């Protein structure tokens, strides 16, 4: 039976999508709160969302909640905070096995929906603030998350590069905010921030399962109808202006390999051509960067490009020896010039299209991929089907890619340097 997708509006202008596909052995529910990314609220929002899945009014401690989840065949329940351009996406996500796999016919789905409902609408609140123990655990956890960013050197370099590229724009902030901000917050601040999110965030809910559930929409609508909802306007695409002069910043660490991240920006409105440019330039193992910087010149293990459509930006990152940084930079820019000058073969274009086709066709093979696809549609404000997106890519001509390439300009560079060579 083919997949069935339906999006409806619940009370309070909350979007509710059901994605029913009988092949899945699990059910999942994902609630996204969409709000402006702002240095004054990033930390408190991330913290508020995390406390929600630490306990609830029914399961009042992390231990009790976890005990219940493991009884429900190891169902998962967690919170997340992400960044998409200038927007902060916060959420609660849960996944559980279908009732038909339960040993004694337990109603796993019903019990999980009750748990999520309690976490979101009846959180563990005492005297107008989140339960002190749950708050403390979550606050410590978030501080550790922020500290631990340095443990992943490539991720840390990308994150520092993002701060430099978007300086002065909301996107310069981390989705978790800063350690200093988290340390100053109180449980009351977090609860008040959550109440504000319930009122002002745009909310999109996805239910992905093998069977319809007729009660869930009504139940959620009932809860949202009791909240005075006034969702804020969100702008999902906010192109970042390119600097007139390239800025380079660096840090030194006791590392064995240096990292370089090059931030590029574009003022092209042709997002399909920009995506094809990025794919041919550095997103695959036959891309110009992989074939030249890695395979021909042996300068690195990875050298890749990724596009950030919401900010009209592109990032190239590479792990490289200090003595080869300039050589790598020159080659990356030379490959960009190659594309600007139209040096794109039919094979390169065809291969990029095949890569995109394969990726797009895989949408729907996991509950997460369905949810990501439809959320992306919401952000882009279209109702495109996967095959329609591919048609858009297919219609992109080489000329359009060259035009897009000619809008790509180097904006800033971040270097993570080793100490030994000093």
């Amino acid at each position: 039976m083919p997949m069935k997708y339906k999006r409806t509006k619940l009370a309070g202008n909350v979007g509710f999508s059901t994605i029913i596909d009988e092949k899945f052995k699990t059910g999942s529910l994902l609630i996204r709160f969409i709000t402006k990314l702002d240095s004054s609220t990033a930390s408190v929002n991330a913290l508020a969302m995390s406390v929600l899945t630490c306990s609830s009014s029914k399961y009042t401690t992390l231990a009790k909640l976890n005990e219940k989840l493991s009884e429900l065949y190891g169902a998962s329940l967690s919170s997340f905070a992400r960044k998409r351009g200038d927007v902060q996406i916060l959420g609660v996500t849960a996944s559980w096995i279908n009732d038909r796999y339960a040993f004694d016919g337990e109603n796993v789905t019903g019990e999980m929906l009750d748990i999520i409902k309690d976490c979101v609408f009846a959180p563990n609140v005492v005297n107008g603030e989140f339960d002190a123990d749950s708050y403390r655990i979550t606050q410590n956890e978030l501080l550790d998350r922020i500290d631990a960013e340095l443990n992943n050197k490539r991720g840390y370099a990308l994150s520092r590069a993002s701060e430099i590229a978007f300086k002065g724009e909301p996107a310069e902030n981390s989705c978790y905010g800063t350690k200093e901000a988290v340390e100053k917050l109180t449980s009351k601040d977090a609860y008040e921030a959550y109440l504000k999110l319930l009122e002002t965030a745009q909310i999109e809910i996805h239910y992905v399962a093998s069977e319809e559930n007729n009660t869930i929409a009504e139940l959620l609508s009932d809860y949202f109808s009791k909240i005075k909802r006034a969702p804020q306007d969100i702008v999902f695409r906010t192109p970042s202006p390119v600097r007139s002069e390239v800025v380079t910043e660096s840090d030194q660490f006791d590392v064995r390999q240096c990292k370089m991240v090059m931030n590029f920006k574009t003022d092209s409105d042709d997002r399909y051509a920009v995506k094809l440019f990025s794919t041919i330039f550095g997103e695959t193992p036959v891309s110009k960067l992989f074939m030249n910087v890695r395979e021909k010149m042996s300068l690195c293990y990875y050298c890749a490009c990724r596009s950030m459509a919401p900010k009209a930006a592109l990032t190239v990152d590479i792990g490289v020896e200090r003595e080869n940084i300039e050589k790598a930079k020159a080659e990356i820019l030379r490959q960009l010039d190659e594309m600007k000058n139209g040096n794109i073969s039919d094979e390169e274009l065809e291969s990029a299209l095949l890569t995109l086709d394969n990726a797009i066709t895989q949408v729907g093979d996991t509950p997460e991929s369905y949810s990501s696809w439809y959320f992306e549609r919401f952000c882009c404000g279209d109702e495109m089907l996967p095959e329609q997106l591919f048609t858009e890519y297919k219609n992109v001509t080489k000329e359009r890619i060259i035009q897009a390439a000619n809008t790509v300009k180097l904006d800033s560079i971040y270097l993570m340097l080793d100490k030994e060579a000093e």
Partner: protein
Amino acid sequence: MEKNIIKSQNTGDSCIHVKHKSGLDIYICEMPGFSSVEALFGTKYGSINTMFKMRDDKEYTVVPEGIAHFLEHKLFENEDCDVFELYAKTGASGNAFTSFDKTCYLFSCSKNYQESLKILLDFVQKPYFTQETVDKEQGIIGQEIKMTNDNPDWRVFFNMLRCMYHTHPVKIDIAGTVESIAQIDADLLYKCYYTFYNLNNMVLSIAGNIKADEVLAICDEYLKPCEDKGLETVFPDEPDEIVMPEFFETQPVGTPIFQIGYKCRNCSGEERLRKSMAASIASSMLTDASSDMYKKLLDEGIINSSFGSEIFDGDGYFTVIFGGESKEPAKIRDAITAEINRMLKEGLNEKDFQRIKKSTYGMLVRELNNVEAVANLLINSHMDGVGPYDSLSVLSELTSNDVINFMRDELIPERLVMSVVEGEAD
């Protein structure tokens, strides 16, 4: 060729196993409703296989550390092009990995799977190495080694293994060192290739939007029959005792990370699966977020949600590892040993045992929900000498006594090691 249908009594899932006339074991799982295809073509050859011989050889050959991984990189190059360029014509995403005990070449795609399967079977059976291409790869792999040496998770894990193992090559880095890979040349690569890339030592697994008959027809066309030359791999004798109880390394990290591991006695096949399942339940009970120990450590700020456990086992090694981020890992080590003593004295709480068992069952069912996970399950289980769904049946038969026995016999304080990577200021 007989198509043997393997079915899970627990979930109803099934797959096909074929012992191909070429010598290759083939596992196929048709997954209706899914769009993608995941295929892995693997050999039982990993970083630990540094000493081997064929039936007719008199002496064992000893090879440099990291050669299995080096060979994986080089097999991606044909005489006339790079394998990625071939996949570029089908749109498949091709890749490969080398672990401790296997090397796998894989692709995932949602279109043209038959063409991609032909590429996979063809290039893995066609080695082409020259000194020039070997030299070129030294630079790329050298950067890969440096990258992993800057990864504290990698360092904490290998430091832990070096605390445990005296001689077993599981303690060496999968990619070797810049010095060891400098000893590799084309002749040595050919020797390793013809030793380990014999179809009798290999497996193909493929899952997703496929048809078994189409897969088998391609296998018939592309697989070249291999004579079983009686491959023998050996490992130096490894004592039960550990090397040293703890090791600390300084690296730029934001939060210190640790691994605490028990060196257990190794075994193989079904016995290893049963032991691994008992170990998994034991460690899950020890890291259970609803336990008193977890609550106490969390309340005192000693652990966070990164605290967890894993079973790491293979040919000649078996370990139970607890890890995460902590500024006071020694306190976690003390808490774990105290909790094991308490459990051994008081016995397991049967209700908690059943709950953790259900949770583990749920995790195994979820695995069957995903094309990539199924293809990996098929190849891994074969290489471990068990059936794809045996974990589910072993789990269903497991009792709390099995878990207690495992804890008593294997989680021995004298075989406990701790590895920590901390920042300079910590």
